[in-house]
């Protein structure tokens, strides 16, 4: 598979109002324009006035994991819309799909209809991109009472697994006010990174060599933590999400100045942290608790490691046995 192949897609689909735009904005740190707000909820593809259904799809030209493009589609609530959608545009939409992420609104009262649309999407995927990975997100779980969440999610998961055969779908329950959204997307991205286990092993070696306290690997577009290594127990279990949020806010501010974020160093008497570009798909964050190690040393280490990790990431490159080199 050559790297100049057509761009593969990540489809983010779901009923209108299920929270896809918010989710995309939060994960990819995009500013939400006012007019896509709920007032004209499906302003994306609503104008069902005449004969032609023109849907205005949200192409966010976000380069995600290298060569993936995110497409956001509303599976709208109008039936005529759905019929047209699935006959004329179907092949266009569902070709070349790498990942399908389908969002369900947990408080939706039209469960049958939702499942029906989902199955139609799956059929289209089977026909056009049978290798695609399917993820289902049961969203807005914060609206369900805490003691019922597990139960409801299990129910939905069973239904979805059953309906998705022969494709295998992975289900997550999410809410933007929880850590569940972050974890779900981290898992999704983790499964999409090629050679991720090898990356993890090498990351551990790298961390041990440079004597770092903790090393994190972020995906470039979303700053989701793909993998990490820590040498001792850390106190805050939510630190990944916090770091991601902080960096994404910084990225937003930078973009207002038409600047792009490249690297950062934070240092005080207790620790030094370095965030830097790593490979074409990732960023790395290195935390050193020994303040006597000069920054320059760590930065050189990171730079040298970069080359090795680049080779690991290439899907069509020959597999280097990096273990021998790094040892």
């Amino acid at each position, binding site marked *: 598979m050559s790297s100049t192949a057509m761009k593969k897609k990540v489809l983010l689909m779901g009923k209108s*109002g299920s929270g896809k735009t*918010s989710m995309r*904005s*939060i994960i990819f*740190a*995009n*500013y*939400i*324009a*006012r*007019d896509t*707000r*709920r*007032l*004209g*909820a499906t*302003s994306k593809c*609503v*104008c069902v006035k005449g004969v032609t259904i023109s849907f205005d799809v949200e192409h966010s030209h976000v380069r995600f994991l290298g060569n993936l493009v995110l497409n956001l589609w509303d599976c709208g609530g109008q039936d005529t819309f759905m019929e047209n959608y699935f006959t004329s545009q179907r092949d266009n939409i569902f070709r070349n799909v790498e990942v399908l992420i389908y969002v369900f609104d947990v*408080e939706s009262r039209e469960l049958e209809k939702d499942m029906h649309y989902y199955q139609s999407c799956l059929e289209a995927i089977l026909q056009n991109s049978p290798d695609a990975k399917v993820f289902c997100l049961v969203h807005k779980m*914060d*609206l369900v009472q805490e003691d019922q969440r597990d139960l409801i999610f299990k129910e939905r998961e069973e239904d979805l697994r059953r309906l998705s055969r022969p494709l295998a779908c992975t289900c997550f329950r999410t809410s*933007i*006010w929880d*850590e569940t959204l972050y974890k779900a997307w981290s898992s999704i991205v983790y499964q999409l990174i090629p050679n991720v286990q090898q990356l993890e092993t090498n990351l551990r070696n790298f961390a041990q060599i440079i004597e770092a306290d903790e090393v994190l690997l972020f995906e470039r577009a979303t700053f989701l933590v793909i993998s990490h290594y820590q040498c001792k127990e850390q*106190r*805050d*279990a*939510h630190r990944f*999400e*916090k770091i991601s*949020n*902080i960096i*994404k*806010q910084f990225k*937003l501010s930078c973009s207002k100045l038409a600047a792009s974020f490249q690297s950062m160093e934070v240092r005080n008497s207790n620790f030094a942290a370095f965030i830097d570009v790593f490979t074409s798909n990732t960023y790395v964050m290195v935390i050193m608790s020994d303040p006597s190690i000069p920054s320059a040393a760590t930065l050189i280490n990171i730079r040298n490691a970069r080359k090795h990790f680049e080779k690991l990431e290439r899907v069509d490159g020959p597999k280097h046995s990096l273990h021998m080199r790094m040892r």
Partner: protein
Amino acid sequence: MEEDCKPLLGEVRTGESYSHGGSTDSLDYKGKRPFYVEPRNIVEDVSQERVSAEAAVLNSRVHYYSKLTGSSDRLLSPPDHVIPRQEEIYIYSPLGTAFKVTGSDHSSKNPSIVTIFAIWNTMMGTSILSIPWGIKQAGFTLGVLILIFMGLLMLYCCYRVLKSPKAIPYIDTSDWEFPDVCKYYFGKFGQWSSLVFSLVSLIGAMVVYWVLMSNFLYNTGRFIYNYAHNINVSDTEFGTNGSEKVICEYRGTDPAHNDSLGSLYLGDSGNSTSDVALFDVWWNKTNTVPFYLIILLLPLLNFRSASFFARFTFLGTVSVVYLIILVTYKAARLGFHLEFHWLDSTLFYVPEFRVFFPQLTGVLTLAFFIHNCIITLMKNNRNQENNVRDLSVAYLLVGLTYLYVGVLIFAAFPAPPLYKDCIEANFLDNFSSSDWPPSSSTAAVGEVECLAQWHVIVVVKGSESVTHSLFLSDFQGTSETSHFMVVNGLDRIACISPRSSECRESCTDKTPCLLPGRE
């Protein structure tokens, strides 16, 4: 201690950094809730956790999400069930101490009396000027009975509107307005129809205010002209003699005659009669002045911010109070002129029961209308269990006010020299502009208030809601032109009910009344 705590309370900081020029944001406390501040003890090196991990990460999320949307956008603002309860909230100082936030939270709740006053204030509109006319149209007894009955009916409907979100199970309806409830029960049709009915009443009120404003403009122009040309109008008005002058705009016994008294003038010389006639052609109450008003009000469309004019809404209360005092004074001076003729009509009086009573019911439906924002108004009541009681008290007060003004004016209208039938739809027109206390100044004060509310609602909220709803946001990004188009497209649009701006003032939710709500 307070000085130490002040900079930590992020409202001030975050508010400044988020403001994009929409100055109505000052009322939106919910969008700026920094319920939690990370305790960074800079004095000691203490590693203990004072706040829970969940609160810390939620704070990080709230800060991040707030950067993703516009300042007035509530899409990503934390809902109530996600924020920790009031009892769990502490305020920390960097020096290490903390205190708990006691009492009500920052979006302060109002005691009952304030809520009642807010409802009264919002309901009192220019309908009060038409109540005597309405009573005249229905007949005195029937009018009073209808007023009481309509008040009770509207109160019951309002009660049902207030209770409707609570009756919906399994869904968090805490920020729902009535169109959302309609959408829940009737789907899109319900939402649209509730919006349309809201707009109908608003457009009706807009027309009323336009008429009033053009009347005022006409009278002002006329007054200036008369003053400049030394024309005395008082002899041509058909009215009472004496110190309390009440005029009747109809001449003779034909009440269907429209007023064109302006055409009869005693001028200084014969030449000026033709000038007067020319003036009357160009400055006509019904034909030309309303269009001149468009030119005057057009620049106001450029004011995007609502808060400047919103400050004038207090003039509405002032004018109502002044009106009541005026009415009492006039009634005391004129005395009562009441005769009860039950079904027959006499020359000077009207029967007690008339077939024109639907006109009164029509006036009263707008007079008692507050249903589009009662939910939001009541949200800030401190003791929610008293909502129904407070609503009833408010309606009672409003009903009494209307009854008072209506009955007094009707009863005091000097029937033997004039006809009860002369009572105008705007009873201030019955009083001559040259008498004292100046009833025209009430109109002036009311006009400024009208202007304020007109601007606020039409320009900022009304056109927004209309363009977004009717034109399905194909106009995105062209808000200026779309506002302009809406305003010019609707003929003779004018002011708006005081309700919407009032309820914006008194409640923290910015867009409660006109927008169709979040789906």
